[in-house]
């Protein structure tokens, strides 16, 4: 075919950015492995961080469908996250207030269905209106979810939270690796299940994004009028993107509930929405790979800060290092002052500080994100020329 892309060679496909980021990632992984081997970092901490990572990755992938593909501003990431988590928690827990103890598969279906239904309920009346009304509606929804979770104790057990949520995967085969990594089989099982979910969602999204559906959403994001002039029912496409993204957030909530086995309203504060936005923008809006990369960066900050016990002290030591050197050079004659930040910074504050710095850095240095979308929104099998796509040709 005359239009078929000729850039099928691997070398053509890998950009300088990808090389840089790939290299940095490899270095980082090597450093983590080294730290674990050298006894600086506990392997159990690494595994439990990895078990947590799918939560943020899934949320970021979901928001990317809404904001990255279609330009929809959803301020209710935490809301859909909570909806997914509570849907499964209420149905599958074995304790108060319900004790239904249904199978997690039921919880998964419920998490997805309830998220989808609520996304429809918000999107149907507001996606026809101007974009800002929709954004405001999502803000309102997040607040409603928070209030319901807190106040409807018969359903959600209120501020006490829901306990006794079953573990997803905990089999005998996991005890070997768990012992090796100095962690629990449950943690290992969570890593496996969590990343399986991420992989499935990623593959599905990659497929729909490179399809004509993804192309229409890209058009809507750039200029909705153009989409309409070209005969696209933009309202329907936006609604679909909003529902799809919200369902993925619901799945994130599902995984989170079973990963923690106990959930309380405090886990779904609006700040979570903010973290996920940072992940998507950092990675590169519209790029699935970017959402994964940005998600990992946010996880790194959220989890990494736990390792720093006295952040202010650490920063002060760092700032004072040159003075120390100077001091030593001058044989302790001239310099006898040290910087003191006079701050009381706990881990939470440090976390926010780092995220804030990260946001400033992205906006200033790389507004398009680390891995902005590169692939054309063209169905790959159609570019493959004659008949060399047997898998795609099956109906």
């Amino acid at each position, binding site marked *: 075919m*005359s*239009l078929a892309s000729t850039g099928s060679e691997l070398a053509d496909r890998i950009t300088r950015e990808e090389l840089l980021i790939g290299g940095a990632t490899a270095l980082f992984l090597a450093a983590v492995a080294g730290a674990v081997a050298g006894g600086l970092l506990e392997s159990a901490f690494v595994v439990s961080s990895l078990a947590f990572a799918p939560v943020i990755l899934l949320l970021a992938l979901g928001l990317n469908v809404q904001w990255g593909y279609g330009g929809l501003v959803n301020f209710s990431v935490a809301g859909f996250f909570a909806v997914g988590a509570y849907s499964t928690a209420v149905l599958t827990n074995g304790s108060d207030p319900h004790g239904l103890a249904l199978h997690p598969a039921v919880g998964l279906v419920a998490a997805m269905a309830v998220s989808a239904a609520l996304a429809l309920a918000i999107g149907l009346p507001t996606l026809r209106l101007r974009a800002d009304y929709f954004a405001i509606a999502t803000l309102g929804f997040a607040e409603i979810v928070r209030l319901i979770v807190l106040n409807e104790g018969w359903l959600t057990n209120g501020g006490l939270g829901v306990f006794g949520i079953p573990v997803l995967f905990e089999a005998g085969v996991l005890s070997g690796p768990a012992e090796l990594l100095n962690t629990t089989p449950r943690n290992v099982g969570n890593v496996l299940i969590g990343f399986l979910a991420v992989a499935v969602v990623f593959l599905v999204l990659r497929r*729909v994004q490179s399809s*004509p559906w993804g*192309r229409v959403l*890209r058009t809507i994001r*750039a200029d909705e009028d153009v989409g309409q002039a070209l*005969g696209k029912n933009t309202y329907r496409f936006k609604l679909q993107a909003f529902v799809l993204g919200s369902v993925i957030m619901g799945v994130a909530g599902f995984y989170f509930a079973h990963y923690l086995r106990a959930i309380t309203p405090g886990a779904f504060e609006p700040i979570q929405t903010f973290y996920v936005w940072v992940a998507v923008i950092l990675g590169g809006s519209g790029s699935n790979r970017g959402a994964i990369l940005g998600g990992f960066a946010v996880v790194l900050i959220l989890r990494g800060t736990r390792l720093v016990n006295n952040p202010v002290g650490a920063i002060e030591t760092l700032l004072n290092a040159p003075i120390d050197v100077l001091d030593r050079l001058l044989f302790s004659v001239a310099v006898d002052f040290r910087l003191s930040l006079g701050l009381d910074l706990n881990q939470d504050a440090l976390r926010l500080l780092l995220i804030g710095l990260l946001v400033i850095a992205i906006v200033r240095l790389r507004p398009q994100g680390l891995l902005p979308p590169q692939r054309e929104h063209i169905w790959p099998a*159609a570019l493959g020329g004659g008949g060399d796509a047997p898998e795609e*040709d099956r109906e």
Partner: protein
Amino acid sequence: MSTASYGYDGGDLEKPDQVLTVENLRKEFGALIATEDVSLAAERGSITGLIGPNGAGKSTLFKLISGFYEPDAGSVTLNGTDITGWSPDRIARRGMTRTFQTPRRIEGMTVRENMLVGPQNQAGESILSTMFRPGRVTRDERANLERAADLLELFELDHLADEPATDLSGGQFKLLELARAMMVEPDVLLLDEPVAGVNPALAEDLATYIERLNRERELTIFIIEHDIDFIMELADPIVVLDQGRVLTEGSPETVRTDDRVMEAYLGGGGES
């Protein structure tokens, strides 16, 4: 007002085989009446020129016809169907699409991707089909890629197929917009200032393409254009709009010699 000194003829509604009929269309923006009692019709396969001074209401009329604005009164009929109040996308699917006065570039898309947004009823526009009927999606996409390649060749844009559309020059982008609109396979095409800001050579090309599309595909075309020579060369009839109303309609020669037209232009909106 000076306009009172000459009468408004209105458009000619007595044409055979009307593909588009506009009757008594009206649009107000607050106190401003942007479109007032506009009636006109287009014969299938014709090229109609729409001229008039700045602010005469040409673009507003296009938006009313194509569904981007809802009229306060009047009706629009396309191929015998009353499409008044329809959404733009529904109207496009019925066979009428438009281009925009100011270039609307889709950021982050190549020329080829832009073209592929045009075709209607693509299997791959359904998420379910991308999951469960990939073969159909592939077939559709192949056909559309081929059609896009043909059109890009026709418009001599094929060498730019892989370029980001944002890198195109103003003139090239106007060409792309026209080509992209053709991917919709419309019966009626509304072009809002297709050669504004385009260099003369490319404008010449555009005229040739427009004529060719009109001839070969029985395409009915409406063109808004300030370049009088361009429009007189290309279109017949010419409709003159002034202060939201149809001043007159006629062949290029009659319009050219009509004193009222000159007066409308010189009057700069007739406020003097």
